[in-house]
């Protein structure tokens, strides 16, 4: 896979409207009527704007020297009637912002209509696949997964030391109920929801900077500023790749908060709810996750007494029906995006989601083309069947690399002191890494479609990751393994063909795993490979709950789970670089180093120097703008310490299928099969249309 360039955060510092205003001050050329239907495939001579594949309206009209004539979905009145609580629709010009976001479709100007069919697993389970299709946030990662571009915000501005982030919103932008959207809605989300102890017991990490809260200033109706207690360039990244949207409808949710409206509880009780916060929770789910159950599912007996079935949204579609079988959505009549020909997006009129939680049934439905798109929950093992039926089902499957890979980690702070000594010996870990026959794993477990790799911390590896680390001790070399084990003092003293620890104690490595974390076939092969160099192993499958609790209780010899994060995520969270190197639900090791760090050295085991260096470097790395030589230097040292010490041993990175029906137009091949950039969001599903 091609190496990814670092995210250029330095550029957008002066980006956004400030520069644009200067650029358009010189306007004056004659305006031709009707705009060229520019697409990414054929820009019809329209020059590129500040950001790839999209413009702000004034920028586009200036560059294309035209005036957009606006058009809307012919069924929009009918769709609007299905949104309970919405009044009659004003004309289109009053529904979209003055400076709407102009989207250049990939291949064609779309046709309105159709229902987009999706499969999810269950209520709130396996739904991000579908959520990402209607998702919006302040900004977005472009499909190169490097450039951050405007979305709800039309621009942004950092101050010099990354402690003030200002967003510029679009004038005339409206919520799906027609109420104006603005800076107040951003402040409301931060102050009254994210920081509200009645909503969140404890604020989420991503709304804090170095553990402290920010403040939010409303500069004017369309300008809002985050003031950070410490530099955090990653905050902008958060608003690009997180599910959590940096705004909520103050006019709608605020009236149920007793602190903002003294009548809140009375209104709520009149509708049969306990109090105002109960109603707020019914709508907002006390979570930024965007499909927590709506009142339609939560309180079907009382939802009729509430003013609307769901709270207003800025997304492309809005929920109109929900049950435990699935959901139904219709196009948001106030959606802020318009194509280059002046058509309001989305093209797709309705979306329908049904819940299927059985792998075989999901596969049957996909082969039968009963869904329009599927990425999440599709594993490489389903690829042969899906690929075989592509023509018959009139769909296409792309195999794209995942971000995580199955990774092993020896317990360097094992309770057994002799094991701690052995696992803590770098030569032992090197031996275990070269003992793994990654080529064989790739062939027999992954149809030869994967790529043998070492774990380097960043996935995909940015340019500052030196080549030598990507395959560091990842070759298959049993002789070298035996030599390293001998150097580490392991000998077969009892002649049973397996090595004993230096003190003569038997060494049997218990490999406990859960299939949710790593494939069984891979674990079994690695167990055999280690046995082949004289390390006795036993393999046992356990439930994810058992695995997690044993791992965090420091009871495992070796942990195994999928692991890997892209640069964009690492900028916002340091967990992969600080003992125990990830949260409770993922791959961890060195629990006693973590205890030492948490107790400031009062208990636990003191980590070695390289682990302390990793902690210092990740914090410095996060406060340094990406792409600068200083950031690259820190990044390179992070990789050197992480990979050089082989705390984590990588195996084979595999691709997974991404499915779409051929009727879905303007579909572009994805770069990765992953959650980390919020799934489909970078590939602009709002400009998909159905050719049926």
């Amino acid at each position, binding site marked *: 896979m091609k190496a990814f360039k670092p995210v250029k955060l330095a550029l957008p510092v002066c980006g956004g409207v400030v520069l644009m205003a200067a650029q358009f001050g010189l306007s004056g050329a004659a305006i031709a009527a009707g705009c060229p239907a520019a697409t990414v495939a054929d820009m019809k001579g329209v020059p590129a704007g500040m950001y790839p594949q999209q413009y702000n309206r004034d920028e586009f009209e200036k560059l294309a020297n035209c005036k957009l004539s606006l058009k809307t979905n012919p069924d929009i009145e009918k769709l609007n009637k299905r949104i309970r609580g919405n009044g009659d629709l004003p004309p289109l010009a009053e529904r979209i912002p003055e400076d709407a976001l102009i989207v250049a479709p990939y291949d064609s100007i779309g046709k309105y209509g159709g229902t987009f069919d999706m499969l999810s697993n269950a209520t709130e389970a396996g739904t991000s696949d579908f959520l990402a299709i209607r998702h919006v946030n302040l900004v977005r990662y472009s499909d190169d997964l490097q450039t951050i571009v405007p979305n709800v915000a039309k621009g942004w501005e950092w101050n010099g030391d990354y402690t003030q982030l200002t967003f510029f919103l679009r004038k005339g932008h409206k919520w799906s109920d027609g109420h104006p959207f603005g800076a107040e809605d951003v402040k409301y989300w931060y102050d009254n929801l994210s920081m509200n102890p009645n909503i969140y017991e404890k604020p989420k990490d991503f709304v804090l900077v170095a553990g402290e809260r920010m403040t939010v200033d409303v500069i004017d109706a369309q300008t809002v500023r985050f003031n950070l207690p410490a530099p955090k360039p990653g905050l902008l990244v958060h608003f690009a790749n997180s599910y959590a949207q940096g705004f909520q409808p103050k006019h709608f949710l605020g009236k149920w908060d007793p602190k903002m409206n003294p009548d809140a509880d009375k209104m709520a009780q009149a509708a049969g709810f306990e109090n105002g916060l109960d109603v707020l929770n019914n709508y907002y789910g006390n979570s930024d*996750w965007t499909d927590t159950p709506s009142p339609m599912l939560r*309180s079907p007996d009382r939802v009729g007494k509430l003013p609307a079935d769901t709270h207003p949204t800025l997304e492309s579609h809005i929920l109109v*029906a929900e049950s435990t*079988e699935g959901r139904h959505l219709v196009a948001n009549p106030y959606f802020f995006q318009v194509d280059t020909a002046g058509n309001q997006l989305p093209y797709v009129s309705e979306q329908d989601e049904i819940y299927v*939680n059985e792998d075989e049934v999901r596969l049957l439905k996909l082969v*039968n083309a009963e869904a329009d798109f599927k990425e999440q929950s599709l594993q490489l093992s389903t690829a042969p069947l899906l690929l075989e039926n592509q023509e018959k089902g009139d769909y296409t499957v792309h195999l794209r690399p995942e971000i995580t890979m199955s990774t092993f980690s020896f317990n360097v702070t094992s309770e057994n002191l002799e094991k701690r000594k052995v696992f803590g010996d770098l030569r032992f870990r090197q031996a275990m890494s070269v003992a793994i026959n990654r080529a064989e794993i790739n062939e027999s477990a992954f149809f030869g479609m994967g790529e043998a790799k070492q774990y380097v911390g960043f996935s995909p590896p940015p340019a500052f990751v030196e080549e030598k680390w990507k395959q560091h001790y990842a070759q298959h070399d049993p002789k070298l393994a035996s030599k390293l084990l001998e150097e580490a003092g392991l000998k077969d003293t009892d002649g049973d063909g397996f090595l004993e620890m230096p003190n003569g104690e038997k060494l049997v490595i218990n490999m406990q795993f859960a299939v949710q974390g790593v494939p069984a076939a891979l674990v079994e092969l690695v167990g055999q490979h280690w046995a082949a160099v004289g390390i006795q192993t036993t393999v046992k499958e356990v439930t994810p709950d058992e695995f997690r609790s044993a791992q965090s209780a420091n009871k495992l010899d070796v942990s195994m789970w999928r692991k890997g994060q892209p640069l964009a995520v690492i900028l916002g969270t340091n*967990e992969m670089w600080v003992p125990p190197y990830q949260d409770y639900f993922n791959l961890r090791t060195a629990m006693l180093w973590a205890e030492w760090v948490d107790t400031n050295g009062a208990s636990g085991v003191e980590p070695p120097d390289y682990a302390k260096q990793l902690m210092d470097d990740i914090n410095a790395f996060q406060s340094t703008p990406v792409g600068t030589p200083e950031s690259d230097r820190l990044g390179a040292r992070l990789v050197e310490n992480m990979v050089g010490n082989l705390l984590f041993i990588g195996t084979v990175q595999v691709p997974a299928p991404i499915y779409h029906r051929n009727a879905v137009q303007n579909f572009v091949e994805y770069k990765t099969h992953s959650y980390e950039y919020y799934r489909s969001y970078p590939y602009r599903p709002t400009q998909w249309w159905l050719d049926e």
Partner: protein
Amino acid sequence: MFQFARFAATRAGLAIITLIMVSFIVFSLMELVPGDCAERYLAFKNTQGSGISVADIEAERNRLGLDKPYIVRWGKWIVNAFQGEYGDSCILRLNISQLLGEKFWISLAICLTSLLLAYLIAIPVGIISATSKNPLLNNSLRFVSYLGLAMPNFLLALMIMLFSTIVFGDSLTGLFSKEFRDAAWSYERVVDFLSRAWLPVFILGWSATAFAIQTVRALMSDEVGKLYVLAASARGVSGRRLLWRYPARHSLGPIINSLGFDLNRIFNELPIVALILTLTEAGSLLIEALARSNDQQLAGAIIFLLTASIVGINFITDIILALTDPRVRRSILG
């Protein structure tokens, strides 16, 4: 009459004690599984991309009252359960009574219909096959019934779905078609429901029928050869009259007795079939709660309701038996 009331009351009391004991076992089993509701919920939230610390889990545990002693929690649970209140689902955070709502009745209806179907077919067919001397009839009945017994239900469901997908382009999944999924109950919705519900009833009914035929056949074969039947026929009773009045009536007792057991068996098979057919009823929710989301609250509520149904059916069959079987009746009424 007083004795009969006393009998009914004792049976009802026993049923309630059984229910309480089962609930205790169910609750204890869930307690033995590693990881509690707080951990499960946050594990679930973690899959949605939120970072979670051990402190979060502790806070959630306190909030849910999971730090309280086990017996206290069970006591509270069982008192609420008898009032039809099961609290919130661990993962979905929805009120379980509302979540289950009509779903449990749909499941029960599917099971009871399968059971009814099974005995409507099994009783006459079992009697015929026990008394018939026609080898062709006997063997073909045996073949069909062994097939029903031997073939796993989920396989049958998958085969029917695959067949339907290839031939009709419809995978026959779900309890409702798309347009009726979110609609209110109406005549059309009932028709739509029936047009889909026949499939699980058919699949569950087949193996239940096969099982019931074997039971009826064995009981009948046992009875027909007995001396009282011979005596009756010697007195000139013959044909259908002989079968229905003597051996069939004797066989009926054990069959009524096994109804509760049969319902349990059908309900046990329902979740797998429901999962394959993506029916969103209580059975598939149970599998979902037990195997996927580890939602103890929801699973506990469904198992409790199921146990209550079976205990209830057993109670009813006891009463019916007491009314229909003179031997039982006499032993109660003295």
